[in-house]
Structures are given as structure tokens and as C-alpha cells.
């Protein structure tokens, strides 16, 4: 399996006038093509730092981060631009890339139609529900045709019911489009219900404490996974490892 993202012995130190903080030390892991990797860690372990490193927005102090291809970043809130229609929002990454290709735009529109946003392309974000907006944000991320998706707790701003539904949506869309994804979350059950593999980070400075390949077989639906017997076993294990 080809690696799309690879962290090799990454150390990152933040410098402020008050001193320096080591956010990550000797951090190594990789994400294979088509893999859905979830990363959990105690709060304040530098999860967002990790995503910034992965996206290339931060350079490591030492070590190496290699990426094969483009990243798509999805944040906690949808961050749709309120002055743009849904369609214009979805085109945003293409505009940034100065994509002249007409296919890219029609591809993005197709994607939106496929996942239930066809009737809302000319609507403004304020007219959509929270779940729909987050789905639009995912389509926007996918419109750039990224080789890896970086998901920064993309459901944490939603209420519980919407959250389960959007989680289901995202899983279906990402699996359906055969995307590679790196999910960062503090929600253990979300990690278990979505991922192929889960990494547990240590407290700051972050490094990989445990890595587990989940055994749900072909079951990729988060809701179905939650009903399976091994779900609670994984939850208990990860809970203990997080609090160790």
C-alpha cells in the first residue's frame, strides 16, 4: 500500500516571548492510500498542530512530513462564506487554484447533486440547516479533488442527532469516493465508528502511544458499527489508554 502522508520523527517547538513549548517530539506515523486513520489524544496534546503540520501550514522543527498530492482541510465549523451561494462556496478551492478546466467545476456540481445538495446550489448558507452546511463544506473540500482529507473534529459543532447523521453522511461520501482521510478528534466513539485504524497520542509533547487496526470487517456505516458487539470493547480499551 502506497503512503499518502508520512510523518518521520517529527518534532515541533513553538516559540513565544515567554519561552518555548515542545508540541510534538519524535512523532512518526503514516497514512496509506484509501485508509481512514483517526487520531485521538488527551486535550491539549496538539491535535490541531498535527493537522497544520500535515497540511504543510507549519514546518517541523526537525524530522520530515511528506505528502503525496494535495490536502483538503475540513474544520469544526463549516466556514462557508455567507456572501457566496453554496455553488460559489464549492467552487472556492478551484478558484484559488485558478482551475480553468470546465470539468472540475461540473465535477463539483455533480458531487453536490449526488449527495443531495442539487436543489440548494443557488441558496445562501444561512438558508441551510447545520447538517446540510457541514455536508456542503465536505463537498467543497472534495471539489478540489484532494489526495488526503484532513478532518479537524468536523462534527463537534453540531447537536447530537445532526452529528450522528452527518457522521453517517461523511463516512458514506468518503468511502464512496475512495478517499484517504486523517480524522483528529477527542470523541472516542466517533473515531471507532469511522476509522480503519486509530492512533492514540500521548500528552504534550505528542507522540504515538498506541496504534490499533479495528476489526469491523466490511462494515463502514458508523451507526451499524455502534451496534456491533466489539464496539464497546474498543471504547473501553481506548478510554483506558487515553487516561493512562
Amino acid at each position: 500500500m502506497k503512503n499518502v502522508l508520512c510523518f518521520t520523527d517529527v518534532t515541533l517547538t513553538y516559540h513565544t516571548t515567554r519561552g518555548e513549548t515542545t508540541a510534538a517530539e519524535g512523532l512518526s506515523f503514516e497514512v496509506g492510500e484509501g485508509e481512514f486513520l483517526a487520531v485521538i489524544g488527551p486535550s491539549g496534546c496538539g491535535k490541531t498542530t498535527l493537522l497544520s503540520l500535515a497540511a504543510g501550514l507549519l514546518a517541523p522543527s526537525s524530522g520530515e512530513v511528506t505528502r503525496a498530492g494535495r490536502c483538503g482541510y475540513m474544520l469544526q465549523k463549516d466556514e462557508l462564506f455567507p456572501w457566496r451561494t453554496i455553488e460559489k462556496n464549492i467552487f472556492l478551492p478551484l478558484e484559488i487554484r485558478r482551475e480553468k478546466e470546465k470539468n472540475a467545476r461540473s465535477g463539483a456540481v455533480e458531487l453536490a447533486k449526488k449527495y443531495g445538495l442539487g436543489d440548494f446550489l443557488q441558496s445562501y448558507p444561512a438558508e441551510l440547516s447545520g447538517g446540510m452546511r457541514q455536508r456542503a463544506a465536505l463537498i467543497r473540500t472534495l471539489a478540489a479533488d484532494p489526495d488526503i482529507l484532513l478532518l479537524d473534529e468536523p462534527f463537534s459543532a453540531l447537536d447530537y442527532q445532526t452529528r450522528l447523521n452527518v457522521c453517517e453522511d461523511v463516512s458514506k461520501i468518503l468511502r464512496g469516493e475512495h478517499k484517504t482521510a486523517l480524522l483528529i478528534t477527542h470523541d472516542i466513539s466517533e473515531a471507532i465508528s469511522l476509522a480503519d485504524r486509530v492512533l492514540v497520542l500521548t500528552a504534550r509533547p505528542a507522540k504515538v502511544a498506541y496504534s490499533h487496526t479495528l476489526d469491523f470487517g466490511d462494515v463502514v456505516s458508523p451507526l451499524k458499527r455502534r451496534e456491533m458487539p466489539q464496539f464497546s470493547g474498543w471504547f473501553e480499551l481506548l478510554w483506558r489508554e487515553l487516561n493512562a
Partner: protein
Amino acid sequence: MKHSYSAEHARFLRKRRRKLALVWALRIGLLALFLGVWELVTALGWADPFLMSSPSRIAKTLASLYADGSLFYHIGVTLLETLIGFAISTVVGCAVALLLWWSETLKRVLEPYIVVLNALPKIALGPLIIIWFGTGAEAIVFMTVLVGVIVATMHMLTAFLSTDKNKLLLLRSMGASKLQILQKLVVPSSLASFISMLKVNVGMAWIGSIMGEYIVSRAGIGYLIVYGGQVFKLDLVMTATFLLCLLAAGMYFAVVLLEKILVKNEEN
């Protein structure tokens, strides 16, 4: 649209309409009361109309200004100075704010100077302005720009700097250049602040132009006020003040209209 409201909803709408009518009636009533009392106390001789003027004397003064053709001349002079000063200070203010947003270093270097310029009472520069620009309209426009530009700059810089951090992160993760971030995010998200800056700057422009006319002028509303004061024609002072109220309100509502046109899509 066909209406099929419930009786309760109809009552609710009626109540709202009544409330609105009441507010308007009170607004107009208040003005009428003020003018009526003013007219009455001067007509009955309780207050000296020579010092207090009165609504009827203001109307007479307006009529005579109109008759000798100087009414629209003075309005035109002041309006033009104000509009030019307003436009220049808005454009320069936005441009400087953009520059300061672009360069963090430049912003930090210039910050103390901007603070001092903002705190400085611009009227203190009056003598310098007369010497540099003479006693024509240029001096007044310069004063107007001076009063407005710093406020416009600071207002817009605050708006640019308060751009949503997460949206910035999102654009950077898409590989956006600084220019693209400016075009796609910083400028459009500052629209509401731009409008509120225009509203503030309308007031600033009037302060600037009237202040300028106090210092140097041979025409304009500010000139009428100063001249009226010097020759003790308080009717003229009051009339000019009344005109100023109308003009400032008119310009403010022009900005409100602009806001309605520009901000129609952003419901939230």
C-alpha cells in the same frame, strides 16, 4: 401573495402596524411641538426673537436666500466640499488600511503615529492649512480629509484584522496567496464594517467641512453661520443650522440606501 392568515396572526399584524403608526405620529408630533413652542414663546415676547429667532423667521430667511439666488449657491459649495472630502478620506483610509493589513511591520511602525494623529485636534492645524492651501475650497477639502481619514483608516484596519481566523486557515490550506485571501475573504467579509465606516465618516466629513469654513471661507453653510454670528443675524445662523441638519440627514440616508443595495444577500 394570497393571504390565509389565522385571526390571531391578523391581530398580530394589526398591532404591529398600529405601533409603527404611533411611533411615527409621536416623532412628527415631537417636532411640531418643538417648533410650535418656539414660535409661541417668541411671538408672545417671552423670549427675544432677535436672540432666539423663530420658525417663521427661519422660513422668511430661507425665502429671501432663495429669492436672491444664494440659497443653492451656499448649499452647493458646502455639499461639494463635503462630498469631495468624504470621497478622498474614504478612499485613502481604505487604501492605507489595506497597506497596513498587508504589512505587519509597517503597521507596527506606523501605529504610534496614527494614534497621535487621531488624538490631535485637527483645528489646531488651521493656521498651517491657510498658509499651505490659501483661503479657497482646497483648504476646506483638506480639513475634511484630515478629520475623516484617520478614523476611516482605523475603522477599516480593525475590520480587516478581525477576519475570521478559521476562514483564513481554510484558505491557506487551499494554498491561497495573500492577494487571493484579500480578494476572496478579507474584503468581502469587511463589507458590513465598510458601511458602518461610511456612516461614521459622513458625520466626520460634515465636521471637517464646517470647521474648514469657520477658519477660511467666502461661501457655504459654515460661512453663513460665522457671518451671521459676526453681524448678529441669528436668523441666518439658525437657518444655516437647519439646512445643515437636512443635508447631514440626507447624506446619512443615502448611505443607508447604499447599504440596502449592497447587503441584500447576507441574511445573517
